[in-house]
């Protein structure tokens, strides 16, 4: 699996198939048991704590539910990476934070606490925080989960615009087909720990692959079975000779 520089690549698949693990491997939060995880020609799995800190400065990550610091205001959340990693003076930090918050439409919510904003707004604040240092790699973990249609559209637009504006490499982990296909340059489908299919959204829309079709057409049964594997219905009810 590779992620082209400057492109928006989506990793899709059912719940629990290991999509988020891909991001955690890239961020060095999970070490690979085998194989290599390369970022700028460095194997992330082999880095020590200092190496991870160095490489993570080049990454931004949007967590599924924002993961905002609950004891800090919206402003302070976005200012956090700037305060930690730059020697910028207070006025410059304020200007940068306001620009980031303006980009996500929340400049006037800067003094609110995370408990005072909606889930969609929290996602946008987390988005502003993730790109505060203009990282060359931005990872999005389920950015559309639990959002209303308006917030969903806003988030998708922001991801695409930010990718274009920063020229960053973006990795989008999601299972939301229409929004992802509208913005992604390339898509990987994961199932059973393997790449089940890959291609551009246009190619995948035309795919005859059963798994891809089940996923795109939202079919309840197919290569991913509806029933949890185990005994048959006949076995459980003690019916012999019956057809299923």
């Amino acid at each position, binding site marked *: 699996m590779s992620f082209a520089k400057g492109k928006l690549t989506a990793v899709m698949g059912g719940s629990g198939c290991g999509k988020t693990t891909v991001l955690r491997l890239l961020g060095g*939060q999970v070490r690979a048991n085998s194989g290599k995880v390369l970022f700028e020609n460095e194997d992330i799995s082999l880095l020590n704590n200092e190496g991870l*800190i160095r490489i993570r400065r080049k990454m931004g990550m949007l*967590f599924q539910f924002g993961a905002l*610091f*609950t004891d800090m205001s919206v402003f302070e959340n976005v200012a956090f990476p700037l305060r930690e990693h730059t020697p910028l003076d207070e006025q410059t930090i304020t200007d940068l934070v306001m620009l980031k918050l303006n980009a996500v439409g929340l400049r006037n919510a800067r003094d609110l606490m995370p408990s005072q904003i909606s889930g969609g707004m929290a996602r946008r604040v987390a988005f502003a925080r993730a790109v505060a240092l203009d990282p060359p790699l931005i990872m999005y973990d389920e950015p559309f989960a639990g959002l209303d249609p308006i917030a969903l559209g806003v988030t998708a637009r922001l991801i695409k615009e930010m990718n274009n504006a920063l020229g960053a490499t973006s990795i989008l982990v999601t299972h939301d087909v229409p929004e992802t296909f509208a913005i992604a340059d390339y898509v990987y489908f994961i199932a059973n720990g393997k790449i089940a299919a890959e291609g551009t959204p246009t190619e995948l829309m035309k795919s005859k692959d059963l798994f891809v079709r089940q996923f795109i057409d939202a079919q309840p049964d197919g290569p991913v079975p509806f029933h949890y594997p185990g005994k048959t219905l006949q076995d459980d009810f003690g019916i012999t000779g019956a057809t299923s």
Partner: protein
Amino acid sequence: MMHELVNRITRLGSFVRSNITGIGYATKMFITVIGRSIGLLKRFRLVSDQVFFLGNYSFVIIAVSGLFVGFVLGLQGYYTLNRYGSEQALGLLVALSLTRELGPVVTALLFAGRAGTSLTAEIGLMKAGEQLSAMEMMAVDPVARVIAPRFWAGVIAMPILAAIFSAVGIVGGYLVGVPLIGVDSGAFWSQMQGGVDVLNDVGNGVIKSVVFGIAVTFIALYQGYESKPTPEGVSLATTRTVVISSLAILALDFLLTAVMFST
């Protein structure tokens, strides 16, 4: 029969191994916290904010408890001393009991129940809400940024709170002993002044409270940091903080008292 025996031995082995592993992890974490505390010297504000926070959390409960413990010491002390005609030594008894023993121990138990549980829940919820992961991904070490400041804040706050407990307790003992029972005020204070040794009595109490501060704060933070990121996990970790801290305080108190008596 044989199968059951094997099962029991397996369970015992698993229990022992997981506990040894747990102690190993905790020791490693403790060393990590100490090792990553150096940066706090440049950003002491992170520690002082937490000292204020933890102190505020526990101040009222510790002051009120100290007052009532002082009341009881005044009554019980008078009851015992009166038998030997030594009620004039009530001030000394109250002061020694509080500075050497009750001040550090009761403060630590209350601190574990009030601030310790709050620390565990805070760290546990930060973990459950992926805040610690987010910090990691922002190239900020959560141990250095979140755990270490809270640890040192607890270590600093404990002796201060124990001193407040003892001071308020002495006032409580005075209120019961002098205005209520009628012990001579001059004797109450002069016996105390003459009998309490700053180095041996107050100093030992301070050492105890610092050790309890290290134990309680670390246990609380470790339990939060290692808790499962679920509501049940955080709830279980909070309970474990109180149980383990209380037992650790009492065991350490015995050890420290034994060492202090022998020297």
